[in-house]
């Protein structure tokens, strides 16, 4: 008996040790490791201009990742985000041909994103189509819309400076787009983790039926989750238009997979097993800085998708091996 008590104690100690280990924070540690390695390996890496540039190009992927997060939390997919981004950008560029009001142009993008999100939500929730299919259908239609609006041509004329200002460094050498992205991440973190809204969403993601029977207004909450995702796509469209100063009809779809990769990769971090904001942001840092460092060391451009995909698979495999739910 004494024997078993002693070994029990030893077991407890082990558990205690494991708790303060890096479990759930691997991405952060890998990130620190990468920072050190790249700083030593490349003189251009640890420079303010490099990081200012990284912050500039990260705003759009970051907001896109946050946009796919809210449907994912309730257990749904929004596959329209890429097409939707292209559509909103093109709609704004076309609006710019008719008005000089930057406010109106930005508003058009946000409203279009929101409406697309609500349509996705209604198709999924009321018509009970699988979100996978509903949002794919909506996305393909939007792609057609983008081609129609642009007639297949890039629109670069008449984009007001007030719009492109979003992507020009201002306060502390960061662009307004970057500042807004940081603010959005903080607000979303607060909503998901510290308000009933967020907890309802996680409950619905865990089991819609249980949430419904527990009196949670699942219909409303699910539509809102899609709407929020759509609105964020509208925000990303504005940043993207500001960055490039033009709308290209073939732009958008390529941004979807990286967004999902970040959201999935984020599941391994901070709140293991759950889609979460800080995990997603950490994943963004890892993928962006990882590829940036590699390209400074001279790897060719096509390494980026390979790096992103590889990082995602390895992270999820490691998490699985530790028995975490991913």
């Amino acid at each position: 008996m004494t024997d078993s008590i002693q070994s029990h104690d030893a077991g407890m100690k082990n558990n205690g040790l494991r708790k303060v280990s890096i479990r759930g924070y691997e991405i952060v540690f890998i990130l620190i490791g990468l920072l050190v390695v790249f700083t030593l390996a490349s003189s251009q890496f640890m420079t303010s201009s490099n990081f200012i540039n990284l912050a500039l190009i990260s705003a759009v992927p970051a907001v896109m990742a946050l946009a796919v997060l809210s449907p994912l939390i309730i257990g749904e997919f929004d596959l329209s985000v890429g097409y939707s981004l292209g559509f909103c950008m093109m709609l704004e560029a076309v609006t710019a041909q008719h008005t000089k009001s930057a406010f109106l142009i930005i508003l058009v993008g946000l409203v279009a994103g929101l409406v697309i999100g609500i349509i996705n939500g209604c198709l999924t929730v009321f018509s009970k189509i699988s979100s996978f299919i509903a949002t794919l259908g909506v996305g393909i239609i939007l792609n057609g819309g983008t081609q129609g609006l642009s007639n297949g041509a890039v629109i670069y004329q008449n984009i007001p400076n007030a719009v492109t200002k979003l992507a020009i460094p201002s306060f502390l050498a960061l662009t307004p787009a970057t500042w807004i992205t940081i603010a959005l991440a903080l607000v979303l973190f607060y909503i998901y983790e510290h308000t009933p809204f967020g907890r309802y969403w996680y409950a619905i993601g865990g089991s819609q039926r249980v949430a419904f029977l527990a009196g949670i207004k699942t219909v409303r909450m699910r539509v809102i989750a899609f709407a929020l995702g759509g609105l964020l796509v509208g925000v990303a469209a504005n940043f993207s238009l500001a960055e490039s100063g033009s709308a290209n009809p073939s732009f958008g779809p390529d941004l979807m997979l990286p967004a999902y990769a970040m959201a999935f990769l984020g599941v391994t971090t901070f709140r293991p097993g759950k889609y979460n904001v800080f995990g997603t942001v950490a994943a963004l840092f890892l993928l962006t800085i990882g590829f940036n460092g590699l390209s400074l060391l001279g790897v060719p451009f096509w390494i980026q998708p390979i790096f992103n995909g590889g990082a995602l698979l390895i992270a999820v495999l490691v998490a699985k091996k530790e028995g975490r739910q991913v």
Partner: protein
Amino acid sequence: MSVALRGITKKFGSLFALDGVDLDVDDGKIHALLGANGSGKSTLVRILTGAYVPDSGIITTNGRDITHNWSPSLADSAGVRVVYQEAPLLDQLSISESVALFSGYPRGALGNINWRELNKSTQRMLDELGIQRLSRDSTSTLSGAERALVALEIAVRTASNEMSLLILDEATASLPNTEAQPFLQRVRKIADEGLAVLMVTHRLPELVYTDHITVIDSGQIAMSRPSSGVLRKEVLEVMRGRSDDELSQRNSEIENLKPQETWQEIVSIKRSSTQILLKVENLQGTEIESLSFELDRGEILGVIGPRGGGMDELPQLLTGAKQRSAGSISLLGQILPKKMNPSVALEFGICYLPADRLHEGGIASLNVGENAILPDIFHFWHKKSEEIKAIDQIIKSMKVVTQGRKALFGTLSGGNQQKVILGRLLRLKPNLLVLADPTYGVDPLARQTMFEAIRTAKMAGVAVILTSTEPEQLIDLCDRVLILSDGYVKDILQGSELTDEFFIAEGL
């Protein structure tokens, strides 16, 4: 071929799941295995199926030691077969194909599937079992009892001649008592033909079919005797034996709290009104044709009947889990809206415990605490300490065995999950508790805790509607029992009529 275990020990970390267990399952005998959740029962079954390898001890068939390199495939070739609670049949396939997945497809000359042969042999099996379906019908047309029978038959047939042990792992837990009878009779027949059967069960009435009873507690054999002469009461006492001590040890910090007192604090109900609490008139759904009844405060109404007769539907219609097609429900004189969601029902103080715990009861991926206060998340916004207090109160008063409120709900045993869900509902101070088969797959000890909580709620003036597949439980608990059949009330039993004899007379 009889199967025997000698001195089987299995440790997980420093915890003894099994500690020197001896067990003999003889040919032609049904051997019942009982034990509370967490007693080591499932570990024992998993050792027999090869899923676990014992740390020490031996497994023998016909006196031959077969423990060496013990594994699932070895157990399989030694002829161990298991029938689980959920029959592993695929709803989308025809009955023939469901069977063929296990017993193999008969082949034609070109290696093609010989459908005619398959359908014919499956039809023969169905006829033998007295199941009136065509082999080409969809598997989803089978009732729960029929699925269990088919699963049993598949298990026996795939083993052909080498079968040494048939294990029934709570195979009847999801069936109403009456519907379990053909299954148990079939098992008896299989045993009488000379097979060794190990029957894991929570249901004490089923023990009449068995030859030998073994009760396991904290990983050790607490009782092992021939069935004749064993009283149900004895079994319960043996099961309770050590588990209670262990429970109080695990929850040592709360030993001063008596559950009854806690609940009275929680369920303090405004008792002023003298109105009838619940009035149901001409209620209609898809199973229920027309149903009217009244229920008063502090009354426990049992509902029982054959599957499809309305017993499963009534709780759903009353709580908005399913929309009623006609009829009125009024609570304290207020008529509930025609289209009623669970959120509306909750506002009226109608709380629902669903029968399908796996899909409707709790959220496995959230923790115990989040599940315990699920309907009240908004109330606890920015009131963390209040929230923790509420959660701890549920854990303590329902004697939930958990590693804490942060433990994942999915890691709790079935009984403990159900206790959390019941605690969640009681904390909402309901007017009416609607419990659909609450003790399904729950061990007798957890059952007692739940019944105590339900009785305390009754004392506080809560009205309770409770369905069950086991008449026994209703006798203990209910003031009145409705027997529903074909969508109508077939009979109402109350007072002195609430006895085994009356239920047997009703064919239940």
